[in-house]
């Protein structure tokens, strides 16, 4: 069976339609190797979009192109404006980016890290610090303000970085324009309770009118929270659609080159993915 690919909707430039992320014919070449080619999608704000796919399929590279971190060919537009036309400050007011991992060059406290998310870090009024504390509470790190960032565990560091990004974008929309969160494997080093907490923060951001695009590995967590799935394989987009349309045995098994079975959670009819595996020795 051919992988199903939903046709990209024709974009019409109306005002209510402008809050969307549009990617057309995206291609990225890193050190002479074509990593991503022919990727196109268009997601409206108010949705949580997950990019899934095997290691090396180009998920993170698509993310880095969309956030302006690597040079790309093709078109990327955020809320109607081409990426290349926006200054770093304009982009920073429009979207926050959570990297997979952040190591500091100098020892900052948790408070100082999260404060960096406040735009124009020149001042620090009481209202601004209140936002820092609130962001830390949201990621379940209240009281961690005075801790040294480098002394935290990987999962705690990841949540501090999310608090910093939340401080940056804060409101999911501003004067009718959506703000965006780009999250690169936001739950990769978290325990199961905090995985769900972070996904709920992301889903809530989308529910309140913001746009969220997240690179994800855990298909079940993705199925639980994502409104839209982009499946990458070998640098191309294999499928694009809502979780119950994309999470099908054949499609998902082909994407990951491994037999996978999709079931439905009895309670809410939500799909879940079960790997078919035996404890045989790995192929040599």
């Amino acid at each position, binding site marked *: 069976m051919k992988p199903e690919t939903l046709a990209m909707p024709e974009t019409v430039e109306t005002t209510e339609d402008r809050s969307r992320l549009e990617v057309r014919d995206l291609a990225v070449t890193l*050190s002479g190797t074509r990593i991503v080619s022919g990727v196109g999608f268009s997601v409206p704000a108010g949705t949580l979009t997950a990019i899934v796919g095997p290691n090396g399929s180009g998920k993170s590279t698509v993310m880095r192109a969309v*956030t*302006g*971190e690597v040079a790309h060919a093709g078109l990327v537009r955020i809320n109607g404006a081409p990426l290349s036309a926006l*200054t*770093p*400050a304009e*982009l*920073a*007011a429009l979207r*926050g*980016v959570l*990297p997979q991992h*952040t*190591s*500091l*060059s*100098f*020892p*900052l*406290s*948790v*408070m*100082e*890290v999260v404060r*960096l*998310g406040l*735009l*124009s*870090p*020149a001042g*620090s009024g*009481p209202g601004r*610090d*209140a936002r820092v*504390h*609130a962001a830390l509470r949201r990621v379940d790190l*209240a*009281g961690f*303000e*005075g*801790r*040294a960032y*480098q*002394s935290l565990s990987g999962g705690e560091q990841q949540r501090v970085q999310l608090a910093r990004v939340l401080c*940056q974008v804060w409101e999911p929309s501003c004067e009718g324009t959506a703000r965006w969160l780009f999250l690169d494997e936001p739950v990769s080093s978290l325990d199961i309770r905090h995985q769900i907490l972070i996904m709920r923060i992301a889903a809530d951001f989308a529910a309140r009118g913001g746009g969220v695009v997240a690179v994800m590995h855990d298909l079940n967590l993705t199925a639980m929270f994502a409104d839209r799935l982009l499946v990458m394989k070998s640098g191309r987009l294999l499928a694009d659609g809502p979780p119950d349309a994309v999470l099908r045995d054949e499609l998902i098994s082909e994407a990951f080159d491994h037999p996978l079975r999709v079931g439905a959670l009895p309670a809410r009819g939500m799909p879940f993915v079960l790997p078919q595996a035996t404890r045989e020795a790995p192929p040599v």
Partner: protein
Amino acid sequence: MSETVLERPAGGWRAAARAGDRGPMARAVIAALAVALAGTALFSLATGALDIPVLSALGSWVEGRDALTATDLRDRIVLTEVRLPRVLLGALVGAALAVSGAVMQGIFRNPLADPGIVGVSAGAGLAAAGLIVLGGGALAPVVALAGIYALPVAAFFGGLVTTFALYRIGTRGGMTSIPTMLLAGIALGALAGALTGLLVYVADDRQLRDLTFWGLGSLAGANWDKILAAGPVIALVLAAVPFLAGGLNALVLGEAAASHIGVRVQRLKTVAIVAVAAATGAAVAVSGGIGFVGIVVPHLLRLTIGPDHRYLLPACALLGASLLILADTVSRTIVAPAELPIGIVTALAGAPFFLWILLRRKGLTSL
């Protein structure tokens, strides 16, 4: 816990620092450093072969009163023509070196990046040596035109070329490799040292005397001309770097993340590199190679007030100035009536002190 409690922690800067906000403490430290700088300057003015009543002598000079006695006149000349230029030059050079070190460490995201260690000072010294040795020949018209600014300008471009080369060699595809950069700095420093050696080889006696001055570093030749030459450059850099503080703070997260929170990273790097080259060049031009100020001062302050560049940069300027004035006072009194080159004093005190800092830190994360 209610938000009002979190926002205004009771118990002053200690409690604020425990709550992760080292700003109040940093401001207190900066105020203390400013007082210390004034005290160090007065101490240095009062110290020397002559016992001079500094405050009254300075006061009468500033008010423009005539010196009444021969002793007053002598005191005034020693103070205004010998000690005061020296203290001012020491303050300027110390501030320039410490701030250059802090900015460079911020840009390269490494606590070891110091203009002295990565060869920027050597490059500036080479340019200055080139001007001294070759300035009489082919470059004579340029030197005549530039006057007292010839040496600072040459040292500035020497520092700039070295910094830029360092940066280009260390950067591939937008990513700066710290080990490559440090190794390239050592190689460039050695190259500049060898070329300076070559210049020493061909120099005549008068030039040799001037060149020796570069090698060791000294404020002995301090006079108002030198302050006029280096002062404006250093003052301009010191006035400009606070505008880099926010960007340097963001850079602690890495270049990509800094860009994501709105920093024009490339422009920040360019401005910072020019500023470091200018300040280092001006400092090297008037005082030769003085080591360890650019690495010890920022490191010590980061341990105390944290890495926030909004506080770190002014604190570095104040502490760098104080320490260099102090080192110069030691260098000109410890073997009186002779003088030790100040570079020997800063290295003798700075190197063991730096090792002590490295040994006493508890874990790798506390660097």
